[in-house]
């Protein structure tokens, strides 16, 4: 299958390991991977902060960039960016506009990593090896907007060496919320601190999620609190093998 990568601006700039892991994983599974270099950002920050026009321009740019890739699927290793495209582009597009048509054509093919693997590629055992205790934080947009359900857990349960720990209060927001963390720092920090406490209580070495922006917030809190728990994107765990183990 030909899969176009939307690596997202946050992953590209701050978490290139996630993008590399996605490429390694998909190529290992025998798929053709393309990265349209003109891609930038889905516009989520602008949209969620109230800058609709800016978001519209970025949305048009996104659909234009990805419409011509000839890919069977578009992978966004970020649940919130995938949700932005699927849920919010139709709201951004004026009725009958080019953006509306392009979104209707493209959006159904945009997937988060766990959806792509489980639903599209039909695989839960990706041959991964990750000998660590892991707890999974189901980020809000993965949980409620994409409705990922048990897909990430099914993938994690097939990873050899991995011990999965249940996270108390898993469905509660970590407090990142994009610009919420900047505009309401005290509430955001209180939410982050509670989330970090929940994670630490599991005794896991690693907390895993499908959104690096949430992991950035959680990881920044864990590190400040010297909790000793690492944050890792699901893609990095699934890409990890005995020959090339992920470093944690």
């Amino acid at each position, binding site marked *: 299958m030909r899969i176009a990568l939307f690596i997202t601006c946050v992953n590209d700039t701050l978490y290139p390991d996630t993008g590399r892991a996605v490429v390694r994983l998909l190529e290992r599974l025998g798929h053709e991977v393309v990265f349209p270099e003109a891609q930038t950002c889905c516009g989520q920050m602008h949209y969620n902060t*109230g800058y609709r026009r800016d978001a519209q321009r970025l949305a048009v740019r996104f659909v234009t960039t990805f419409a011509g890739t000839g890919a069977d699927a578009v992978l966004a290793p970020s649940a919130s960016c995938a949700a932005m495209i699927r849920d919010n582009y139709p709201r951004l597009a004026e009725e009958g506009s080019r953006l509306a048509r392009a979104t209707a054509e493209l959006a159904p093919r945009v997937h988060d990593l766990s959806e792509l693997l489980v639903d599209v590629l039909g695989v839960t055992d990706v041959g991964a090896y990750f000998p660590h205790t892991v707890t999974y934080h189901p980020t809000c*947009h993965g949980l409620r907007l994409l409705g990922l359900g048990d897909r990430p857990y099914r993938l994690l349960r097939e990873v050899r060496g991995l011990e999965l720990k249940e996270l108390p209060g898993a469905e*509660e927001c970590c407090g990142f919320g994009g610009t919420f963390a900047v505009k309401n720092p005290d509430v955001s920090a209180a939410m982050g601190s509670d989330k970090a406490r929940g994670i630490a209580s599991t005794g896991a070495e690693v907390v895993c999620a499908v959104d690096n922006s949430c992991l950035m917030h959680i990881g920044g809190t864990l590190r400040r609190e010297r909790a000793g728990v690492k944050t890792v994107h699901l893609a990095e765990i699934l890409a990890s093998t005995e020959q090339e183990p992920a470093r944690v």
Partner: protein
Amino acid sequence: MSSTFIGMPSFPAAARQAVQDAQLRHNLRKATHTIRGKRGEVVGELDDWAELRDAGRAIKDRTLRHLDRYLEQLEEQATGAGATVHWAADAEEANAIVTRLVRATGEREVVKVKSMATQEIGLNEALAQAGITAYETDLAELIVQLSDDFPSHILVPAIHRNRAEIREIFARRMAEWGVPAPDGLGDDPRELAEAARVHLREKFLTAKVAVSGANFAVAETGSLVVLESEGNGRMCLTLPETLISVVGIEKLVPTWADLEVFMQLLPRSSTGERMNPYSSVWTGATPGDGPQDVHLVLLDNGRTDTLADRVGRQALRCIRCSACLNICPVYERSGGHSYGSVYPGPIGAVLTPQLRGVQGSMEASLPYASSLCGACYEVCPVAIDIPEILVHLRERVASGPGHAAERAAMAAAETVLGDHRLLHMAQRAASAARGAVPRRLPGPGAGWTDTRDIPDIPPRPFRDWWREHEKERARGGGSGDAGGRTEHEGGDR
């Protein structure tokens, strides 16, 4: 809205204080998690909850689309049944109508059954100015009134108080308002409830005038409906001679068959009960039975403006169940007072700025008082897409004054993100400066670095690695990953 709330600091400042109050956070966490759990259980009992939710949404939307017609029907039916209907465009008008009606009775005291509409318009303060004392008879409202406090929750206005605090309030203040608390009052819930019962019983038996709100108004018969747990509301609705009900125009349902849907949705969503203990319905006046002088004040106060907004109007579906408050992680930490209105939590964050406008700093801060996690939408029994309205209201705020710097920053960010070559240049500049990034950021970033570490900036972005990977692939090499795994310093980010 209640004058008592106006002048509150904007949400982030008010929430900062609340977050630091460990007792408050403990009280809120305990209470919201308890109600949340009960709600989850009883909602889970119904196979057709999703259909009920859809029906609730559809009925409310249909009613709002034809609100003018149903309001006229309500007026006609209520008038025919012996009630007098009044129309109030805003808080001032509503307060003037109620004050005039109470004065006409010659009474100086009224009892009240909980009514958010009267809190919204600051009725108690307006009556006090006219020399009329209003006694709150809902237990939680009584606690709030006795302690000169504000309500902080839709269903449990005194949710921020624990029983030790309530005991202290009763012991200290009840005597000023009527029957004093018994000597040696303890903080056992039964004892506290008994003290309130004795205190309130005197009010019910002496009051000639009552003021109420309503959960629903049924257009086809002109009936008003109050659902409650304590029975105090029924005392107010049946014992006095004059009854004045102040009801928001969005409380309408067309028929009794429509009401049936909400009788299932509301108790389960609010108190986590299959059915609420007291459901009271009254239609005009009935000779020889109950209040003989019955008035209905239909309140607009910003609702028509809200109805005119295509996205925002869905907030008028709200049946005030408080499920969104009890699930909201922001409400749980910031408490109800931080929202500066009788409508706190997620629904308050979308309702208050619409009813009052976004010119004030408190109102302008409310659409940002959410991480957009979506839990409120998920639990809402009438499917109000609160995150959608929040973003919609942010657009309104962001285009107004006070946001020039943010607009410029967002436009600059859009310029960079609108061109992959500019983005790449910015990424390389960030990578080059990666050793020089301070641990504590200045300006808006300070709120982040006060409690969190910022991530390490990697030596190069993904797209640089991808180019090499492509070259490797073209040469028939491996993954192009040689040495790549150790490149990102600080894998523990």
